[in-house]
């Protein structure tokens, strides 16, 4: 830096630093903190309520006024993974309870006058969700990275039009095409198959993942691969060893967004799946209680359903923060 000698000027007495502008910085900081706390509480309240409900016993769930302090119970989770029947008479229930070859969870259920008949549907539905959301996420990101790389690096005739076309698949709400897709899938025999939903979710996510990843790959200077090319690597090797590691942030962000969409999708799952392939989202609201609406079971299902997204997001959080502010990634 060159320093320039200049005539002495009046000392600067008013700070022009942006963070110091404002009359009472402490007061504004306190207000800001207050707003953040209120927002956090508002956002977290339903989640906390859900967790509390899932840990309440059937009688506490419906207690009026709602109990804030209660004795926690994991009955709801047993209910969630089991299929039960009510004993027709009090006497039969008591006799069953008296048996000493009962497992701990059978005892818990027996206290409610119920008997476990088999494993419930929820675990299977959760597994279906994993298979469908996981596979479609892998495909969305894989194809997304490849085509984003091609769009970013090669001269493609009609590149702009193609990119616009890819984006245009996002321009109408998916629900608007439910009926045609339903009919098409029925004709093609794709309804009620894993492949059908994986294909559908991949299609929906691909436009998003191509655009997002293209932004990230554009940010990687092409000299990186070129250096690898002159150093004796093929383009595919250069892609794998240089581009992919540089793009992890973008890939992580895209993975999370694609997974969240596929995991949460409700409308098509409700319409295109039944027993064998039904995923978790359409099944949670239709959980059948035994003799009543089991709110604690529904809350437990929602909680379990929420966990994978939380875990995936948490695992990739380091990349996500940079990912969602992309465009501001430093080079080099």
């Amino acid at each position, binding site marked *: 830096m060159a320093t320039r000698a200049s005539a002495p000027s009046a000392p600067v007495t008013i700070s022009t630093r942006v963070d110091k502008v404002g009359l009472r910085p402490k007061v504004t900081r306190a207000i800001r903190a207050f707003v953040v706390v209120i927002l956090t509480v508002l956002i977290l309240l339903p989640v906390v309520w859900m967790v509390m409900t899932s840990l309440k016993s059937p009688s506490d769930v419906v207690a009026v006024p709602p109990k804030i302090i209660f004795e926690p119970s994991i009955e709801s989770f047993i209910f969630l993974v089991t299929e039960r029947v009510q004993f027709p008479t009090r006497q039969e229930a008591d006799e069953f309870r008296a048996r000493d070859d009962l497992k701990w969870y059978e005892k818990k259920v027996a206290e409610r006058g119920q008997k476990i008949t088999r494993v419930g549907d929820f675990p299977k539905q959760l597994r279906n969700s994993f298979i469908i959301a996981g596979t479609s996420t892998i495909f969305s990101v894989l194809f997304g990275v490849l085509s984003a790389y091609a769009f970013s690096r090669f001269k493609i005739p009609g590149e702009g039009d193609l990119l616009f076309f890819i984006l245009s698949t996002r321009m109408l709400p998916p629900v608007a095409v439910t009926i045609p897709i339903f009919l098409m899938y029925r004709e093609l025999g794709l309804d009620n198959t894993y492949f059908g939903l994986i294909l559908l979710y991949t299609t929906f996510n691909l436009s998003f993942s191509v655009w997002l990843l293209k932004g990230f790959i554009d940010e990687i200077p092409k000299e990186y691969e*070129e250096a690898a090319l002159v150093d*004796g690597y093929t383009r595919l*090797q250069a892609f794998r060893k240089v581009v992919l590691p540089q793009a992890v942030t973008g890939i992580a962000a895209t993975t999370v967004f694609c997974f969240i969409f596929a995991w949460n999708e409700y409308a098509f799952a409700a319409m295109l799946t039944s027993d064998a392939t039904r995923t978790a989202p359409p099944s949670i609201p239709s959980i059948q209680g035994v003799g009543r609406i089991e709110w604690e079971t529904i809350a437990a299902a929602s909680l379990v359903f929420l966990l994978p997204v939380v875990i995936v997001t948490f695992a990739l959080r380091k990349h996500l923060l940079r990912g969602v502010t992309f465009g501001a990634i430093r080079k080099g």
Partner: protein
Amino acid sequence: MATIELINVEKKFGPSYAVKPMNMTIHSGEFVVLLGPSGCGKTTTLRMISGLEAVTDGQILFDGKDVTWLHPSDRDIAFVFQFFALYSHMTARENIAFPLQAQGEPRDSIRKRVEEVAKMLRIEHLMNARPGGLSGGDQQRVALARALVRRPAAFLMDEPLGALDAEFRESMRAEIKRLHIEQNATTVYVTHDQIEAMAMGDRVVVMSAAVVQQNGTPAEVYHDPANLFVAKFIGSPGMNLIQGHYADGRVALPGDNRYDVPADWHTTIHEAIGRDGDIILGFRPEAAHISASGPIATTVYTTDLHGSYTMLHLEIDRDTIVDVRAGRGTNYPIGTPARFDLDPAMVRFFDPKTEMAIRKGGNP
């Protein structure tokens, strides 16, 4: 080490030329600098040599072998980029080893070679650092090490010092030069800094507007510029160029000045522009000396003091100011008259119509 030949090599982007058909030979072990203003096609030329950019037409030969359509990885060259192009997910050591791994060399010999190169560039202590944590100069040293490690047939460097601070640039310039002498590697070096070009090049190729303007040693380019562009572009300040009219061994200059052309130039000038015609007189600031009996009368416009000399800016007339170098001893107050004479061995002439130099023995 390879000899590189470009035969009518050209590059078009759409309808416009980035490099017009170009012929050039870079001899084995030579350090050739491509010099020119921004956008003149230097990088494009280098990228065509490397194979990163396909030629539109023409041929590239390495040691007589046609490599025009060979993949970059098959050309056995190393490329040093302006922004280093170090991989931020690898340590310095891994970066340097990267080119060797492509060839599937055994681990031990890779490690040995990497250590060797690190020592040569004095970066042993940085080997476990990631590029992000290194200074610009150190990053460029690592990039140079990565280029050196494979002992390629030729080095291609695209403004390798452009992103560095002035102080680093000086010392890195010396390091690159020393490395070149030690390795005796064919090197093509791109820069738009003419001081760098003159200091480093065995040969300087001056480019402008997609065309090679001159290809010669630094001394040739400096003392015998091929045309007005090179005369102005090389040197700081560039060559003084004064519009004049030649007739019978004399040049009439602005401000009623007359300059008697040295006798050994007469025939050459007659051949080029005839006995009577417009001409441009050119001379370097150090070719002029202040002298009370000098033929050219001027007024002192301003003076700049430099370390060992004074640069005088002398006004011949309102539109013509020339730069003349003088000793530090004398004071030249602004507005006082000054006359100067020219060293007859150092005057040059240009044809204003073709903008080409008028040269004894014709243009090569």
